[in-house]
């Protein structure tokens, strides 16, 4: 029985099914993660977000959930790389000329690349907010500080952009890999997948954009609190509201 399961899980169709299932689990995580992130938009002081973070962190089952999530990521990544390597081996001599007529889009042929970009982003993201020491002013403050740095915001936008491109192909593909295809439902699944990819990418992109564009009120509300913060953040205390115009006005 175990041998049978092992053979199933390690066969090429079984591996694709596992990629599909782990991918589906990760999409579920992303939806919940985005919902949590958007609490940053509720009120200007980040209290809702900080309390959401505290609620999660005080849950004794958190380490278990984190191990599960890490396992999902790890399995998806290892299977993806393994699959890509196997597929490369399947055509040792390539064509001089090849013309595509299929469903191949940028998203389809860049799954490995966008996946690896998301992986690099994931490392940055975890070290930024999970492994870094918690600032006394809370997680919302740390997010704000990270997003108002142009490089920080750019890395996040690149990461969620790659994620969006990855998901553009991924969602309908996972249904096909699990053998779920029907002329009546598959066109809907295609559309739903693209819609989900756009919504998730835009949703995650809201935070850096919001921090840059629409947070003067938030910064003003924060100002008194920031005056007590350490000297490290001192030079930036003037908030993005002040920093943004200076960047755009200088050349004139």
């Amino acid at each position, binding site marked *: 029985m175990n041998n049978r399961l092992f053979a*199933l899980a390690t*066969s090429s169709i079984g591996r694709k099914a596992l990629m599909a299932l782990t991918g589906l689990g990760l999409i579920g995580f992303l939806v919940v993660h985005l919902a949590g992130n958007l609490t940053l938009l509720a009120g200007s002081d980040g209290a809702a977000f900080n309390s959401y973070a505290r609620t999660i962190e005080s849950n004794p089952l958190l380490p278990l959930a984190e191990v599960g999530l890490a396992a999902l990521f790890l399995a998806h990544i290892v299977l993806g790389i393994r699959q890509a390597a196997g597929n490369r081996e*399947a*055509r040792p*001599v390539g064509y001089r000329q090849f013309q595509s*007529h299929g469903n191949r889009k940028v998203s*389809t042929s860049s799954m490995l690349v966008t996946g690896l970009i998301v992986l690099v982003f994931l490392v940055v993201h975890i070290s930024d907010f999970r492994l870094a020491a918690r600032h006394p002013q809370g997680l919302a403050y740390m997010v704000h500080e990270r997003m108002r740095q142009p490089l920080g915001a750019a890395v996040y936008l690149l990461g969620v952009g790659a994620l969006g491109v990855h998901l553009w192909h991924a969602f309908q593909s996972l249904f096909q*890999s699990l053998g779920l295809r029907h002329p009546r439902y598959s066109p809907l699944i295609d559309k739903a997948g693209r819609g989900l990819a756009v919504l998730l990418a835009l949703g995650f992109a809201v935070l850096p954009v919001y921090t840059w564009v629409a947070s003067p009120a938030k910064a003003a509300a924060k100002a008194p609190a920031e005056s007590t913060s350490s000297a490290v953040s001192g030079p930036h205390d003037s908030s993005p509201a002040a920093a943004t115009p200076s960047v755009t006005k200088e050349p004139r």
Partner: protein
Amino acid sequence: MSADHAPSSGMRLTLNIWRQSGPADAGRMETYHLDGISPDMSFLEMLDVLNVRLEREGREPVAFDHDCREGICGSCGVMIDGNAHGPEAETATCQLHMRSFADGAALTIEPFRAKGFPVLKDLVLDRSAFDRIIAAGGFISANTGCAVDANSTPVAKSDAELSMDAAQCIGCGACVAACPNAAAMLFVGAKIAHLGLLPQGQPERSKRVLAMARQMEAEGFGSCSNYYECEAACPKAISVENIARLNRDYLRAGLTTRD
């Protein structure tokens, strides 16, 4: 090529063809100039003309596979300008005519490329991997006995249609050739659907899908990344729905068979 056999009339072509003397040869592209080609010739007849001229000049003709030349045996596939079976949709190489190309065109002709399809010579492949996949389970082993009355085994019309659509597969390997992963999923999916949709295919359905998929992998074909190049290249327009059916049948069989 010399122009004395076919003066100014007809099409002029430049052919860049993969030449490889045997499996161990590294191979190379060679260029030939051909003229006097009728637009009404089939692509393979054009290669015949080239080979006659090469032989007259004492050179080795281009080896290519062909048999029925009517689009049903599946032996003739080559890559033409990066298209499996050439530029026309739902057309095997033998059914392709030279009117599909412009006078003066330069054509690149390569063999199908896959680890599972080693090149034997020039454009000729060893496609016995497909035979071994079929031998692993792509059949119904029940004795047929006498011919039974029509309609004694009811088959739903929609199942019969889907099965017959899948049964159109001629095993040419264009799906493998066009797939970026050199996967044989459409071929195997077509066989699974063809047999698995009919009542006669049920007793061996699970055993069949497990064995054929195992053999497919053992032959070194890649896995499906859902590019759907196979469906577009297939001369019989076999749908990628059959790949979903293969996935579904395989997972079901892997999880539920008891023997």
